[in-house]
């Protein structure tokens, strides 16, 4: 299919642990198609130029959170970033910052997944109502309380944008706290106090200094920075209540 022969250069940070001691840059010329995303460029590289390039992707439509990478130094979903908007290039593609690099553009997620699990991102109930009582009912207003935080696709662009996450290894991070808040604000959940115990330790939320870059790069409008600030206020209020009124129930 004859298209314009315009090309754009992708400069990709490669890292092959069996060969390289440090990451190295490698350039590829890919066709500059009007409707191509950066991900399409990477797929072209893998299909036609260099099959050894490793990277993650899945849905290619911005809902799975797999294809997050640094594009020209900015954490981006490569499936949502037009190549033409980055013309004339070159386009620098690097793995998400702040995570160990496994190979090429693939990073190790386990630290994030452990931190996510530690905030217990599921409904915590003190007691389960009997089945005969029916479903938990929720009004639209109650849904609106937590809905933005539920839009998180775990793409970790916020972690790559957060300088504190790169500096402070114990920081739980924006997405994990936003997801904790998603459950804290859910009217069906009764686990806010339990999560507070975990997150109120030094690294949990207090390492955050409200840089705000996490919310700036979030592709889903989750606003993790807002979630964290609200959590700081709530945690402080809870602490003062426990100090001034220690006899009260939590």
């Amino acid at each position, binding site marked *: 299919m004859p298209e314009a022969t315009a090309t754009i250069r992708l400069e990709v940070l490669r890292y092959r642990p069996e060969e390289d001691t440090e990451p190295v840059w490698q350039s590829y010329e890919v066709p500059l198609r009007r409707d191509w995303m950066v991900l399409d460029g990477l797929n072209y590289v893998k299909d036609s130029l260099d099959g050894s390039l490793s990277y993650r992707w899945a849905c290619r439509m911005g809902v799975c959170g797999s294809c997050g990478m640094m594009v020209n130094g900015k954490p981006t979903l490569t499936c949502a970033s037009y190549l033409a908007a980055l013309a004339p290039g070159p386009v620098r593609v690097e793995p998400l910052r702040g995570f160990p690099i496994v190979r090429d553009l693939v990073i190790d997620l386990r630290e994030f997944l452990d931190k996510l699990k530690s905030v217990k991102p599921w409904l915590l109930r003190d007691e389960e109502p009997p089945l005969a009582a029916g479903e938990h009912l929720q009004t639209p207003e109650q849904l609106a309380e937590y809905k933005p935080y539920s839009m998180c696709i775990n793409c970790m662009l916020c972690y790559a944008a957060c300088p504190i996450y790169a500096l402070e290894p114990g920081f739980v991070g924006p997405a994990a706290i936003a997801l904790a808040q998603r459950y804290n604000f859910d009217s069906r959940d009764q686990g806010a106090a339990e999560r507070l115990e975990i997150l109120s330790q030094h690294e949990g939320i*207090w390492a955050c200094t409200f840089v705000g870059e996490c919310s700036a790069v979030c592709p889903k409008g989750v606003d993790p920075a807002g979630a964290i600030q609200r959590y700081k206020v709530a945690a402080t209020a809870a602490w003062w209540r426990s100090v001034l009124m220690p006899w009260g129930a939590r």
Partner: protein
Amino acid sequence: MPRPREPFFWALFSSGGMIAALVLPALALWLWVARPLGWVAGPTGPELAALLAPPLLRLCLFVLIALALFHWAHRFRYTLYDGLQLAHLYGLIASICYGGATLLTAFAAWALWHLPRLP
């Protein structure tokens, strides 16, 4: 609650930040720019002493000074951790920041207490 210090200092930081944000610009511009430039006449020494005569106002000024100092202490501590990557000096930096703020606050209390009574 493990490590109960952080919510306490964050409360001081945030209330200090709010009070500083609301009150300090007007105070600073008046006392340290308009007054030395002669745009406004006062308050002169005796006038300021009169303004601070009521104990309630001394208390207000003390609260402003104390909260502003602890706002600085908490925020600067984290700026050093993150900006200069000095987080390994955790104890030293915390002592200098909060210790310094405590000392200055105590000194402010003493100074305000000892303001000369008006005849």
